[in-house]
């Protein structure tokens, strides 16, 4: 697969500037997986200094979108059909990373699993998500 993180980030910046503007980026991509990165931003922390649930969900969803590119190529019209997230422990103190791994790529649905952790603590995931993207076109 020739797809690179730069290809994905350029594509998202062009097709969905809001997601790109939030600072989230693809930092690694390969056969059946994609890694998404959120740079720590104090202005987006919830009370207690924690990375909020919506921030984690957004990064998980974005990682799944990146994952869809590994199956479809850079096609914009794969959309979230379903994401279920389980928050495992408080997330604080650094950048957030989300790795999406492919579970199944069908003709109309792409399912993946996402593990999220704070940079430097991959062995202590902060949340875990499972989701499906529907292929519209």
């Amino acid at each position: 697969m020739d797809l690179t993180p730069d290809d994905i980030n350029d594509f998202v910046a062009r097709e969905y500037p809001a997601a790109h503007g939030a600072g989230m980026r693809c930092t690694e991509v390969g056969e059946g997986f994609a890694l998404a990165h959120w740079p720590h931003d104090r202005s987006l922390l919830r009370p207690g200094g924690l990375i909020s649930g919506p921030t984690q969900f957004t990064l998980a969803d974005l990682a799944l979108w990146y994952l869809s590119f590994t199956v479809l190529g850079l096609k914009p019209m794969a959309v979230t059909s379903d994401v279920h997230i389980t928050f495992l422990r408080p997330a604080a103190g650094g950048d957030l990373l989300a790795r999406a791994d492919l579970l199944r790529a069908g003709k109309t649905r792409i399912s993946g699993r996402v593990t999220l952790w704070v940079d430097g603590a991959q062995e202590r995931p902060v949340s875990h998500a499972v989701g499906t993207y529907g292929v519209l076109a």
Partner: protein
Amino acid sequence: MTHDEISEAVAQITRTIPFNQVIGIRVERFEVDHVQVAFDMRPELVGNIPRKILHGGVISATLDLVGGVTALASVMRDREVSSIEEVGEVFSNFGTIDLRVDYLRPGAGETFVATGYVLRVGRRVAVTRMELHNETDVLIAVGTGTYITG
């Protein structure tokens, strides 16, 4: 009890649960970081007769069980027990809070293996990830389970 004795006790307790007998589930591996159960295809477990595939309820029930046993394996690591009754008492305090299942492919096959992995075990709540494969290693379904552990 030694780990092997606890493992055998869990297998025995699991066998005695009536619903598990209906499915025919057997515990094949009981480690803190890896639990495996298996069952064989039988006519009673079919949900789609023309295609001869598993009923979704069989899949979700099996994933629920392997998630619970996975949580039990982690909890038992820190407990001192001396009898199968004590193991049963620990397990009887477990309950499923949330179960999420993604059905990825039809449940076709002769033998099915469900594996469980711990995502997190806290003082009161455990979260596990589960997978169901058939004998040719086709991934049929995945699940995420949350359990109260006492």
